[in-house]
């Protein structure tokens, strides 16, 4: 999986938001707020192609969380991003 092009993560006074840019995202109206974990996952996901497992692995390396729980969180996050049209297979 990878993040579609044209989405940039910005830091607005400490809060993380994703803003759409580019002709392919003309109909994308809103900004998306990310919490700390989601912003961490986004930054990892933006680096290279990923799978739920590789992201979950990163999460366990940086947060005190089991791989099972991390995978659950990552899958929920990816389902949300998929619904919003932020990622592609």
């Amino acid at each position: 999986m990878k993040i579609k092009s044209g989405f940039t993560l910005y830091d607005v006074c400490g809060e993380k938001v994703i803003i759409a840019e580019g002709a392919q995202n003309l109909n994308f109206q809103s900004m998306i707020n990310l919490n700390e974990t989601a912003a961490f996952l986004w930054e990892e996901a933006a680096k290279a192609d990923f799978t739920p497992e590789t992201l979950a692995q990163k999460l366990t390396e940086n947060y005190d969380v089991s791989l099972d729980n991390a995978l659950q969180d990552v899958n929920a996050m990816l389902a949300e991003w998929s619904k919003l049209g932020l990622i592609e297979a």
Partner: protein
Amino acid sequence: MNTQPFHFKVADEVFTITLLEGQSPIVLLPSFGPFLYKEELPANPLFELTLSPTPPASPDEAGYEMIGDFDCGGCIHKIWRKQSDYLIHIYSVTNELACVLKTENGFTRCTASVHGNEENQCFGLNNAIMIVFSFSAAPKGILMIHASVPCTDTKAYLFLGKSGTGKSTHCQLWLKHIEGTELLNDDNPALRILPNGEGTIVYGTPWSGKTPCYRNTQRQLGGILKLQQAPENAIQRMPPVPAMAEVLASCSTMTWDTDTYHHICQSVINIVKQTAVWHLKNLPNEEACRMSHQALTHGN
């Protein structure tokens, strides 16, 4: 053919408009008088826009890709792109073609033809210059923003809101009730974000909507007010993210031009970091005006 170059300075940036022989600056650029620049030209002016007797390009030419039709305050802009160059057809409010604008080299080298009667030509050219100014200046931390702007001797305040939400009306209330305030611009001021967190400068421009207020002057940005009509008056400071969304929505942007859009987003974030943005639900009355004045000048 003889051409006539005119140099202007807006928001501390110098640019050149070259009219064709027989084209009158009084007719085509009536609001630019206060911005005429007669000193020595800088090595790198912001942009040069040259008038052409015929459209500088056709969308049928190879390489142009249609981006879309956009409603810009009641008039349609049709936009095509060839790599990073743009071709823009600007239509008047009566839907007549008023200007064909071709931009090259990051909006720094532009050519335009104007069409229809004098009023149409003026409308088209002014829109074209505003577009070129907005996007050539974006990388320098300059923004064009849709706002009504009252000011004091030292500070200017931006009143934001969609058309018809009472920006100008609330601004008029300030001019009437708040001693020492005057109008800086009523539609499209320019902002320059200073480096190192030194704040933001608000400039008058040749673009001021229906109110003829073309002042070549500047003030420090004192605060931002988002207006919304409501059955009673209430004011609240906006958290950073909604504040950023509000300010960004009021700026001239092209979301499909990734480079300028990124600059503009970053500039807006820098403004929101340093400037309080207030949300005023209001009736068009003196109480609302006292409320917003207290918040913007005293922070409560």
